[in-house]
């Protein structure tokens, strides 16, 4: 006897309802949590307790929520960096390296030093922001020009440059800039610290211990700017056109090479800014492992946000929470596993946006 029901998959012809992408994304995250929970259960962990711990450790109080936002800050910028590049189908997997170079260039301002050490805070911080963005842009320029001029696959070059950037940083922090042989530079002067909310604890008692720093404002401004570029500017239209239909873009006379280089540089500059914010706002020195893989999480953030700059902010907070909790959850790979599963589920769920799946009665189909 045949199945009384069959699954029928049809291509959607009508527009997708506005709520559907949100629902599928949320569903994907939920399924990813369940899957990771099952893996944890399999190796003898207690998924529900870990989940409970996850929420108290990340959203449980203002203090930990601020930690979550601090981790979300670089993710917002890196997520935006990836979103912009991905809009043009330019696979910038090198945000991690651009982040490190941005941190390095920003540190140069203090350690070389590029501005006199007794300069006012505004001058030092402005120089650091600019240098951070230049560093990241430089690291985006290399794969950009290789892609534009020689058609070299940018996925590989950006990835390889990640490793190069990390070794480059190590050279400086282990050697020339090392603080008495430790694998870090000396602590920056206070003038090179981004203002934090806890700096105002004297006036407002509630703010003591709140480590949220000005970098988050950079992230919000960047989100608005990128949204404006993509949705409102002529250039953004070009970027989307090149991404969706390069052939049409070429016939329309768009300069694709120039756009590749520009987008890679802006994408790199955003990731570099994230690196600057991290050294100036959080660690206050250049050291090893300033990034627990922000550059890679940014890829997932961008995709989960469907490349929407404002959604990047929300998703970054979720991923910031994952990073905060991941530091303490054992085994340590679980945060990685969860991120990978989320991304996997999200791209799988996209099929629901293109196709309708219907349950069809067997005899109905016959008729």
């Amino acid at each position, binding site marked *: 006897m045949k199945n009384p029901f069959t699954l029928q998959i049809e291509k959607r012809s009508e527009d997708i309802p506005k709520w559907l992408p949100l629902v599928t994304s949320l569903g994907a995250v939920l399924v990813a949590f369940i899957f990771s929970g099952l893996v944890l259960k399999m190796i003898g962990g207690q998924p529900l307790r870990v989940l409970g711990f996850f929420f108290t450790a990340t959203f449980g109080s203002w203090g930990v929520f601020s930690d979550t936002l601090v981790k979300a800050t670089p993710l917002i910028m890196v997520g935006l960096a990836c979103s912009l590049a991905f809009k043009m189908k330019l696979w910038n997997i090198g945000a991690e390296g651009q982040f490190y170079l941005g941190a390095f260039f920003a540190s140069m301002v203090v350690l070389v030093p590029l501005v006199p050490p007794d300069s006012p805070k505004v001058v030092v911080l402005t120089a650091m922001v600019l240098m951070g963005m230049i560093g990241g842009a430089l690291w985006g320029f290399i794969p950009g020009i290789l892609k534009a001029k020689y058609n070299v696959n940018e996925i590989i070059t950006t990835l390889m440059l990640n490793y190069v950037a990390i070794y480059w940083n190590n*050279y400086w922090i282990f050697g020339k800039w090392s603080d008495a042989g430790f694998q870090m530079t000396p602590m920056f002067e206070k003038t090179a610290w981004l203002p934090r909310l806890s700096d105002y604890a004297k006036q407002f008692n509630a703010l003591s211990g709140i480590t949220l720093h000005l970098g988050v404002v950079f992230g919000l401004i960047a989100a608005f700017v990128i949204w404006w570029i993509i949705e409102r500017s002529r250039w953004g239209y070009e970027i989307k056109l090149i991404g969706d239909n390069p052939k049409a873009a070429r016939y329309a006379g768009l300069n694709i090479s120039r756009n590749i280089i520009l987008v890679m540089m802006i994408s790199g500059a955003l990731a570099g800014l994230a690196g600057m914010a991290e050294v100036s706002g959080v660690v206050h020195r250049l050291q090893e492992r300033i990034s627990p893989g922000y550059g890679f999480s940014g890829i997932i953030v961008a995709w989960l946000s469907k490349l929407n700059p404002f959604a990047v902010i929300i998703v970054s907070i979720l991923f910031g929470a994952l990073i905060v909790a991941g530091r303490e959850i054992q085994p340590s790979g679980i945060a990685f596993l969860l991120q*990978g599963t989320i991304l996997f589920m999200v791209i*799988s769920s996209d099929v629901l946006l293109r196709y309708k799946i219907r349950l069809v009665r067997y005899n109905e189909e016959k008729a």
Partner: protein
Amino acid sequence: MNLEIILHAGLATGTILLFAAIGEIFAERAGVMNLGVEGMMLLGAMAGFSTSLATQNAWLGLIMAIFAGGILSLAHGLVTIHFQADQVVSGLSLTFLGTGLALVLGEGLTGQNPPLIPNVSLPILASIPFLGSVFFTNHSILVYVGYLFIPLTWYYIYKTRPGMHLRAVGEKPSAADTLGINVYRVRYFYVFVGGCLAGLAGATISLSVSPGWYSSQTTSGQGWIAVAIVIFAQWNPVRAAVGGYLFGMLRRFILDLQGPALLFGFQNPIFMNHNLSFFLQMTPFLLTIVALVWGSQAAMRKRLGSPAALGIPYIRGERGL
């Protein structure tokens, strides 16, 4: 610093890249790019290592590693072939997923000593002067498997009927479909083969060439280098093997540069300042970029290129490639 040692070690570490790159060649020849090589390798390395530890049998470990890589690759196959998701993003997520799974399941494996794949010397061949000691002496059995792999995969891809079907599916799936080749089945199969070989590459690391489990440092980016080698090799297994071996030798050469105080009769700057070795560690990655630029130039000149349908999902009954 000894040429014989560098060549010998290069063949051993090159075998890792050889397996991974040839696996990726199979998948990409069928039109499916799988950037998850790094993740599949790491999962394979972990699965092989832990199975060998649990069963005290390295060969069972090897089989498990192949199996683990293959299973993981099927997730990529499902998402890209049936769900038509973007292959780049899916491959990346496979790397995250594989890395995460390997780290979670590999918890506590560091420092363990499972049985390993044995090293052997080939009789007669090993006694050839120089070449014998480089190619046929005291190598892991997997290295010899690698030697056999090169002509066999070349013959399979270019000279057999299934190999022709494979290339057809990667170049023009609609034409292949018209001829009665099941495009979906062929793609699934070679994605699976690619995953199996990536798993094998992982086990080659953890059970043979540099045995041990060092969490994500076990593969340390070799999966990505394998992907780059595929492009550089223009999807040809023989060129991929040469590339893999050259890279292996380079790695060993770099390692050897750091040791001696005197280098070619001069004072060794790296010996004086160990921090300079960070620049040496960069070189494989920089050279990958250089090789890619060179390879892309050559490809553009000769109008060679990737399989035409690489990265494009095939949808039956729709216009397309």
